């Protein structure tokens, strides 16, 4: 039986990814054991990140030979994982060195191979289907241990149909919500008027149609209102705070949400044109700073007396795809890059993840050696 190369890589990736998860992780249901909290934080850079500026760099020799753009212009260094595998990393990754053993690198991740569009690959990332469907993130909270499946910062362009309890809430909105709820009359379920309002929702949820199901959702949500209000009122965010991290910290620590999504969508990463591509080193400098700050914040923020927030949170950093070595056949010193669905990179760390590893399909190294051999010839 012959195995197609892509199928081989895919199978290898799935198998390889399972190496990161210790046994108990696979047995543990997310969020169902309150004595063993487990949160999930997704950082997603929309636009298609050029992973050659991070942990999937290429030797400068390839640029000199006219094969690949490299607007840093410096030789990348080897980043070797505790598993013995290594990858090339640019100097832009330096701020992440203090956290080297906290996260692992997955290179050569295959995305939606039949589609190279942004939307389809964002859909594929979150649902496994280029046309969209159910995002994997709300599934962590299927038992509804938390009132909110996920808090989201930023815009996510995707066709996800199970975001009913995923709440886009930036830091300003959170502060306003906390202030409003502290000042307002709480929902009092002992009040006859509140009971009457709830009774109409319940009464109208008895049918089988869409409206009845909607009324049921409304009744359930209204019933959660008082406890939700209490959770939100306890949130402590400094009035001058501008960053989203304190929202995550409070949401996880106070039991408001199981997951959080930080979606960055600036268009700066989708560097088809040379001008934008030449700005990528600065763009990635900013990105790496954000990731390093996030790791630092997670590790320095106590969750309880024994654990940091990082200890109880799985963190995943990704984009919808990587990028090609150049745009078409343009000269490497004046080119942009195109979408590359065959080689995405993911950083993953935190609870349940073995950090410090590098994993990439051997085919990447073989192709690279082949290129280098060709160049020498």
């Amino acid at each position, binding site marked *: 039986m012959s195995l197609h190369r892509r199928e081989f890589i895919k199978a290898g990736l799935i198998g390889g990814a399972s190496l990161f998860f210790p046994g108990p992780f696979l047995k543990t249901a997310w969020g169902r054991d309150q004595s063993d909290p487990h949160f999930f934080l997704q950082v997603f850079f929309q636009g298609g990140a050029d992973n050659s500026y991070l942990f999937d760099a290429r030797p400068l020799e390839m640029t000199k030979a006219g094969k690949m753009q490299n607007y840093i212009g410096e030789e990348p260094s080897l980043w070797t994982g505790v598993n013995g595998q290594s990858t090339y990393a640019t100097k832009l990754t330096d701020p992440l060195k203090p956290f080297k053993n906290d996260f692992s690198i997955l290179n050569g991740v295959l995305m939606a191979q039949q589609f190279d569009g942004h939307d389809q690959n964002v859909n594929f990332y979150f649902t496994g289907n280029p046309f969209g469907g159910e995002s994997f993130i709300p599934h962590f909270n299927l038992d509804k241990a938390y009132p909110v499946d996920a808090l989201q910062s930023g815009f996510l362009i995707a066709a996800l149909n199970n975001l009913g309890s995923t709440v886009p809430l930036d830091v*300003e909105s959170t502060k306003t919500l906390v202030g409003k709820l502290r000042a307002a009359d709480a929902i009092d379920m002992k009040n006859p008027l509140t009971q009457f309002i709830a009774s109409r929702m319940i009464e109208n949820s008895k049918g089988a149609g869409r409206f009845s199901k909607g009324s049921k959702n409304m009744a359930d949500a*209204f019933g959660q209102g008082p406890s939700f209000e209490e959770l939100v009122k306890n949130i402590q965010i400094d009035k001058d705070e501008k960053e989203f991290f304190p929202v995550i910290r409070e949401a996880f620590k106070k039991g408001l949400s199981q997951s959080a999504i930080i979606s960055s969508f600036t268009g700066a990463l989708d560097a088809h044109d040379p001008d934008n591509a030449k700005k990528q080193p600065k763009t990635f400098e900013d990105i790496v700073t954000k990731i390093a700050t996030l790791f630092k914040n997670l590790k320095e923020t106590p969750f309880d007396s024994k654990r940091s927030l990082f200890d109880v949170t799985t963190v995943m950093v990704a984009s919808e795809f990587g990028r090609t070595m150049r745009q078409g056949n343009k000269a490497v010193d004046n080119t942009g890059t195109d979408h590359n669905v065959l080689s995405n990179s993911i950083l993953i760390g935190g609870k349940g993840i073995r950090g410090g590893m590098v994993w990439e399909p051997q085919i990447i190294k073989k192709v690279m050696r082949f290129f280098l051999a060709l160049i020498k010839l």
Partner: protein
Amino acid sequence: MRALNLICLIVLVTSLGWASGVEEFPSQFLGYEAINKVINDRLFKPDSPVDIANYLGKSDLGDLLGIYSGTGLQFQFQNGTPNATNMVLWHLAMDGLSKDLGAICSIVTPTQLREKITDNFAGHLVPLCSWPAPFAKSEYVLQNFWLAVEGYDAPETEYLAWRDFFLANYTKVAPDQTVVAMIKAMLLNPYFLLRK
């Protein structure tokens, strides 16, 4: 030819069976824009509209009541599925609006909204300011007030439940508080907030 017809029939029946088995998505909230429009169309003068998002503070919280957003093929209605967050926000907004409207009946705390509401709505609200006088409790006043706010969005059973609740529980409550409660109960009714 008969075999072909039979195959077509099987395909048709199978697909109909499949279609009937498709799970229906629950109704979502009508959303911020739609509800804001209904409230303004029914209660407020065109030159003095209110914005229900103002009851949620200066932020993007109004978006969480349900909005159309996105780009291209992904332009869709978002945040419309009832959840703890948007339900609390609807409660906040409708509670605030109800209190402002109920204050029209208050002698102690007059409200600027008196000048903003339509003559039609004022005509149905002001009789309730004499609650619990017999005229205020009459079928004529109550039904017209219900229709002024709720329109024909809800079936009669909803009106009857609402009327009976206030006649049974609010006969000793002050008129302004009664009007606040009446409006709040109407605005938070699923027939008012959800898509039919």
